[in-house]
């Protein structure tokens, strides 16, 4: 065997100047603040991770039940349950520092532009934060969340307001629950977004046939899991065509093959969401598998394939 020719593939990627050892980022809401997973493996193997969506106030979230299943995926109506930004800054981030030494993606939510501004301005000052991911696409809260992500004008307003008070790269997390995601993507880019994260969950519903009632107390919930993957590929592909800023792709990713596919479509990095909940080791497995898969597919540098399908 010639070791010279068998140099392992370079799987590092760069997001707005931030170099990641690999493109794998557990998605917000499926990884807490890392603590549960740090008990299972060294989470420093991750490219980064996106912590639980944080709002100004502490939130219980929606009433339970707020989890339902479907073929190839799940619905959640958690509704941004989180300890609130004070607690996140005072307790979660210091605890996180002990288990994760890389920059994290800070996922921030809000119910008004003022709240987005307040939360982003505060989180921007935290040294552990590498990227601010602004969630304008939560389908599970009323009077906020997705309302900002389904209107190009509102999405641009949030982007502009947040950019005015932050120094770190701002990625807007987009909703798939729109007629044309490229319009929203372009509006965010024009308003100064450094990048885009897509897709958030799709709004769905399940009904219990025994009772005729909704399974979720909130009636609707966000659909995630492998069943949404082709939709994510299509949307990442479309957005890649529409904008120049980098894309963090996500939606039903659960294998190294999915990662490569989403990168072909146009993602620079890839988030893994619901898969973490059923296989807590899925991210390290993907990271281990990636160089082998690159070799099999004759990919020398992972960054070479970003958006490659557009040029074939």
């Amino acid at each position: 065997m010639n070791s010279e020719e068998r140099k392992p593939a370079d799987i590092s990627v760069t997001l707005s100047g931030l170099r990641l050892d690999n493109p794998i980022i557990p998605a917000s809401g499926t990884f807490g603040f890392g603590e549960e997973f740090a008990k299972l493996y060294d989470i420093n193997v991750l490219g980064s991770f996106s912590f639980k969506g944080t709002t100004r106030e502490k939130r219980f979230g929606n009433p339970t039940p707020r989890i339902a299943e479907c073929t190839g995926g799940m619905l959640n109506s958690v509704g941004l349950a989180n300890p609130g930004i004070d607690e996140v800054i005072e307790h979660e981030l210091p605890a996180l520092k002990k288990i994760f030494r890389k920059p994290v993606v800070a996922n921030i939510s809000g119910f008004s532009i003022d709240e987005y501004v307040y939360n982003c301005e505060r989180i921007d000052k935290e040294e552990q934060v590498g990227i601010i991911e602004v969630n304008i696409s939560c389908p599970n809260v009323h009077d906020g969340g997705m309302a900002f992500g389904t209107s190009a004008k509102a999405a641009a307003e949030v982007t502009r307001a947040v950019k005015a008070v932050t120094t770190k790269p701002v990625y807007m997390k987009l909703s798939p629950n729109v007629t044309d995601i490229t319009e929203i993507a372009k509006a965010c880019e024009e308003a100064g977004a450094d990048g885009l994260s897509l897709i958030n969950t799709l709004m769905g519903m399940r009904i219990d046939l025994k009772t005729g009632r909704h399974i979720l107390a909130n009636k609707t919930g966000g659909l995630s899991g492998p069943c949404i993957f082709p939709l994510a590929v299509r949307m990442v592909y479309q957005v890649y065509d529409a904008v120049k800023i980098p894309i963090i792709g996500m939606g039903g990713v659960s294998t190294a093959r999915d990662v490569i596919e989403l990168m072909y479509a146009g993602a620079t990095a890839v988030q893994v969401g619901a898969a973490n909940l059923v296989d807590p080791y899925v991210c390290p497995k993907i990271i281990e598998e990636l160089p082998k898969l690159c070799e099999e597919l004759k990919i020398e540098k992972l960054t070479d394939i970003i958006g490659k399908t557009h040029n074939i």
Partner: protein
Amino acid sequence: MKKDFMQTAVIVSNDRIAKATYEMKLNCDASAITAPGQFINIDVPGFFLRRPISVCDAEDRSLTIIYKVVGKGTLAMSQMSAGEELNILTGLGNGFDPERAKDGALLVGGGCGVAPLYMLARKLVGKNKSVRVVLGFNTKDEVFLEQEFLDLNDVYEFGCEGFEGEKPEVKVTITTVDGSYGVKGFVTDAIAQIYGSAKKTNNEKTYEEGNAIDADDPIGTKGTAPHGMSEMKVPYYYACGPLPMLKALKKSVGNHGELSLEERMGCGFGACVGCSVKTTKGFKKVCADGPVFPAGEVLEET
């Protein structure tokens, strides 16, 4: 958590033990189950989310669960055979604390909630503590584990090492809603009979007297126990069962015990925050902070 957190378990047996109720014995490393009331989360082939099922008993390489067929996932489980493999996450949740019962204990189970009480009873008897088990079912066909609980009377020899005193005793009372077996009614009815009538011998109020309607509180909404039952002397209790049962129990016997809660879960290990519950000590996750909570901290009416 350790390496054995996720493992492959081999099905040793999978038998119907009551109406729509199955007992599955698994061969796996059961060492992560350190307290009764913990659960495992099972990857059922063909389904996205795992099925969280409480552990009925665990020792060495033997892990027993009892589950009810309530949907497609548990139906698929019921159709699996010995020799087949299941991927499980084990050692989940906190479990009951057998140390909290000083003398004897009252164990209250409803439906499938009966299962985790078996390991708890075994642990309590092993610590020379007498156990009163009250199990509630809808009807006779659903009753399970009665004999297994009674058999615990024979497992531990009187006068085991370091023990002085009376042999611990396991007494079992079954209730059925339709009266087809045991005491007719709910677990709370049986508990009122047991602990209410016991007082009669102590020259205290009889259950019936104690049950007299309080003129100031005709529907018994004041205080912890309706109809004067608050004076029932109930030992430290442990309960697992449907929410209405837990609420009724808490109301009738008070907060001197532990309640195991159930909620629809995404992950089972604290990551998704799907199964949150409001407690007197803030928002908690049923899967990771529970499923067992001090009775005084949960199901407080607001």
